[in-house]
Structure formats: structure tokens, C-alpha cells
């Protein structure tokens, strides 16, 4: 069985599609009780990596190990997977969906969670999306998997609903499962015990959010005349972003920003440095390597 080793291992895994390298020498591990967040732009290789872990796609090079073995139908049985599209049968009820997946995996049939019992006999397709998502989670967890793979699990969910879904994910991790989760939203990255950032098929950073942010800083411009300041910084081709009524400029020092502003921020403008957010650090990591979109 698993022993004390990691549940999932990718060791310098690559995947080619003809000439195109979707995943290039990626190494990562997911251990018991860990929640690993996988971040990256579209086309970074996240979905290809997940498909290799699920055993749906063989690696072109490198080694994928699940519970110490190559991916197989046997390892798939120990994985709970929630795809972006949820993967439910719309014309079956929640109970029938659970029954079907239990039969398909050869797992013992589990009861629906109490919160879903009122909807046990309703066709999944006619349930609101939030409930469908809870059914997909119940199904992925119903065979008590050792490894959970979640592809953008909280898309479209309200903040309280999202907190509740993360309770479920963290609960599974506390009970010893390993979790690999993709998200486009940095507020969710804070729920992970570790992060892996991919760009162009490669791992460009890994660690906790503070480790990845490191000493990266941005310049913040606070001024009532933010629109004029935005125009001046845009004119200087600086990568300026709006945050409330403040402007944030990554990759430029306060002096450079002051020069570009040349008074456009008005007399009350305050220009100072601040620690970068995870999202801002993400761009620094993802952008220089990524080709421009029009050539994608």
C-alpha cells in the first residue's frame, strides 16, 4: 500500500503532442494530508498533467507514480476526481449518480450526505449549479479516496458556499487524503498547504504563497486624480493595474513611476512601495516565458 511515501509523484514528466510540448520535465509530489494548488495560465499544461495522473494519457517521458505504482484502473479507484464540467449524469438523480460511480469503481455504495437528502430523487440536471457541485463532491468523496483531484472546484459559487466547499476539501485532507487542486483565483491559493506554478509546460515556482512572493514589490499610486495618473502611466507603457481607487505598478520603482507621472497624479498623489500580491508575482513568473496570445 502507500506506506509513508507520497501519494502522487511526477518525476521529470513530459508530454508531447506531435511537435508541441504540453508538459516539460515537471516534478511534483502530493503527500497524505497535503493540499497542493496548481496555478497557471490556460495552456500552461495543468490539464495535461491531471490527465496523466488520472491515467487517461501516458507520459512521453519521465515517471508518474500513484501510491507507488504506475497509473492504472486500480489506482484510479483510489482517486476522487471533480472535473470542471462536474462529470455528473444530468438525467440521473444524485443517489443514482453515486450508485453508478460506486459500481464503476467497484467501491462500496455510500449514502448521500444529509444536506443532499432532500434532493435525492430530483434529476441532477434540474438542480441549481451550487447543489450540482455538492453532488459532484459527494460522488468524488463517496469511495473515501486517498487522492482528490479537483479542477477549478468552486467556479460560480458564492463566498459562503465556497467556504463550505473548502471545509469539505480540508476535512478530507485532515482525514489523510492528498489533494491536488487547480484554480484561477489567488484567494483560493491561501487554502493550499503548497503551491506549484506552471507556465509553458514547466514548473516556474513552488512553495507556500509567502515563499513564492518572496521580496517582490510593486509601486502603489494613491491619488484622487487616478484617471489622469492612469493615462500618464499607460502613455509610459507601464503595466498599470487598478485596485479600488489606487493604481499598482509592478516592475517599476517609485522613482520611475514618479518620473512617468510627471505631476499627472495631482499635488496629493502618494507614491510608495508595497509587497506584491501573489497574483502580481504570478505575472512576473508567467509572463516573460509565455508567448503572446496572438501566436498561440
Amino acid at each position: 500500500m502507500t506506506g509513508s511515501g507520497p501519494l502522487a509523484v511526477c518525476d521529470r514528466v513530459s508530454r508531447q503532442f506531435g511537435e508541441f510540448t504540453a508538459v516539460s520535465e515537471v516534478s511534483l509530489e502530493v503527500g497524505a494530508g497535503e493540499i497542493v494548488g496548481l496555478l497557471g495560465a490556460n495552456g500552461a499544461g495543468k490539464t495535461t498533467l491531471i490527465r496523466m495522473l488520472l491515467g487517461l494519457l501516458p507520459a512521453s517521458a519521465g515517471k508518474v507514480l500513484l501510491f507507488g505504482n504506475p497509473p492504472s484502473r486500480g489506482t484510479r479507484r483510489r482517486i476522487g476526481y471533480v472535473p470542471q464540467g462536474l462529470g455528473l449524469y444530468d438525467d440521473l438523480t444524485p443517489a443514482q449518480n453515486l450508485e453508478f460511480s460506486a459500481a464503476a469503481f467497484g467501491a462500496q455504495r455510500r449514502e448521500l450526505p444529509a444536506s443532499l437528502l432532500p434532493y435525492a430523487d430530483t434529476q441532477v440536471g434540474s438542480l441549481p449549479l451550487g447543489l450540482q457541485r455538492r453532488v459532484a463532491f459527494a460522488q468524488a468523496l463517496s469511495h473515501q479516496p486517498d487522492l482528490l483531484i479537483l479542477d477549478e472546484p468552486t467556479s460560480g459559487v458564492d463566498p459562503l458556499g465556497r467556504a463550505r466547499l473548502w471545509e469539505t476539501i480540508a476535512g478530507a485532507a485532515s482525514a489523510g487524503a492528498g489533494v491536488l487542486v487547480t484554480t484561477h483565483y489567488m484567494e483560493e491559493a491561501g487554502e493550499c498547504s503548497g503551491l506549484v506554478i506552471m507556465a509553458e509546460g514547466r514548473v516556474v515556482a513552488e512553495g507556500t504563497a509567502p515563499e513564492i512572493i518572496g521580496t517582490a514589490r510593486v509601486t502603489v499610486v494613491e491619488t484622487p486624480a487616478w484617471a489622469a495618473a492612469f493615462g500618464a502611466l499607460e502613455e509610459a507603457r507601464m503595466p498599470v493595474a487598478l485596485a479600488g481607487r489606487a493604481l499598482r505598478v509592478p516592475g517599476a520603482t517609485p522613482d520611475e513611476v514618479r518620473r512617468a507621472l510627471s505631476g499627472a497624479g495631482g499635488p496629493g498623489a502618494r507614491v510608495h512601495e508595497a509587497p506584491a500580491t501573489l497574483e502580481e508575482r504570478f505575472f512576473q513568473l508567467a509572463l516573460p516565458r509565455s508567448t503572446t496570445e496572438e501566436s498561440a
Partner: protein
Amino acid sequence: MSRRPGGAATGAAGDEQGGWGVDEISVQYRGRLALDRITLHAATGQVTAVVGGDGAGKTTLLRCLAGALAPGSGQVRRPAARQIGYLPGSSGTYPDLTVRENLDFRAAAYGLPAGQARERSGDLLERAGLAGARDRLAGQLSGGMRQKLGVIAAMLTAPRLLVLDEPTTGIDPVSRSGLWWLIARAAASGCAVVLTTTYLDEAERAAAVLALDAGHELAAGTPDQIVAAVPGTLRGAVGEPPGEDRRRAWRRGGRWRVWDPPGTTGGGGTAMEPDLQDAVTIAALARELGTAGSTVTGSTR
């Protein structure tokens, strides 16, 4: 337009207050209230975010604001149709037309001379990373590129009100950054921008926020006002809170947070300052638990 007593009224007089918006609008849909007396002020030169999950009423609100749906009651303040740029959640571009053709068509439909439209769109396309995609069919663009095209098309006629329904949903962070640059540029040029999102870290970039839940207002105001208006107190705890506390607790960043409504005394844990995400979560909890003071509203309106 005239105001009819008891019914919905619209008017272009709204800009006197420095913006557009809806006042106390309600919408019935299939026998239930899709919007219940919702008020939203969209100030010029500012981004206003409407946040909530699926079914919260965000799209219904935006359709009312853009003039695609008449509310059952309440008032809508919006400019003339030609001064509204509206990107519906279902794309807003024509998949069988190229990027260039989409923009030309939009310009023609709004009576904007083609030369002027191309001049205006050229820089936007370049800054949004779409300049090399002018001759590609919109249907063949990635989701992020298609959304950027939709926003550029909505901005093309220099609208006074830009209404964007979930422009960044399902879009990766790199494309999202390009979309936010377009949004900021529209606001900087004096346009009132209203957009919807399901994520609070995104809403936090807006100057004002309205949080909806099942057609009801959960919270409204600037992020600071919403945080300042949180009723009761918030405390952090390491382990899962026991008993009654569990119902008012949620997990965030690997730790637990417990909300104590006004007049209750907190159990174990350390007091903490809520942020916008906490504030909206608390408002949703308060509503779920039927606690008084379940709307967290700033004082701007």
C-alpha cells in the same frame, strides 16, 4: 422617458448625480423574486462590482441596467441605448465573423464611421494582445481572447455606461489582467463601469461593491464601508469550533473563523479584523441564520 407611478420608470436624468443605476427595483421570475428592492449606484469614472454566486440575481440586475429587461417595480437610470456598452454573459461576439468584422459590424450598428472605429480599436487590440488576431474568426479564439474582444466591442462606441456580465469567469489570470486593463481604461476615460463576478478578490479591485444572495442585498458600499459595517465580532480559532459556534464558523486559510452576532459573547480564540471576504461571508451567514442586521451596508447611498 416618463415616470409611471407604481411601475418601472427609466430616465436619462440620472447623470445629474454623477452616474447611473437602479433604485429599489424588483423582478419576478417564474413566480419567485429574482431581485428584491435592489439599489445600485454606478458612478462615472468608477468600477462598481456586483458579486454573488450562480442564481444570486447578478445577470437579472445587469439586464435591467442595460435595458434588456424591464423591472416589475422601481426605477432605472441609464443613458440612451447608444451610450450603453453591454456584454452579456453569453459572449456578445459573433463566432462566424473575424475579430475585425465583429468590430466593423458593431461600429456600423452604432453608426460609428469605420475609420474612426478602427483608429479607436487599434490601440485597444494591441494592448490586449489581440492585434495579431484581427483576421481570426471569433469562434476560434480562446475564451480569454474572446472575452477581451467582447469588452473591446462594448467599449468601441465610447459608451457612458459599460455593463459587463461575468467578463472574467473561467478566464485565466493572464487574460484576466488584460481584461482589467481594458476595464480600468474605460473607467479612466469617464465611463461608469458595472461588472459581475463570483470572486471577492476581484470585487476588491472595484471602487464600490454590491453583494447579492438569492435576489437580496447582502452588502453594499466601498470595500472599507462594508468591512466597517460588519455587525458583531470576528474571532479566529485553530481547531474546529464546538457546538453552537460551529454554525457560525467557517474555514479560511487553514484556520477557523467564528462570527459572534451583536450582543453575544465570544468563546475561545483571538479577536480579528474582518476583510471584505469575511464581511460578505458574515452577511451570508447572518441571512442564513435569520439574525437581525443581515445587511451590511455602507453609508454612501
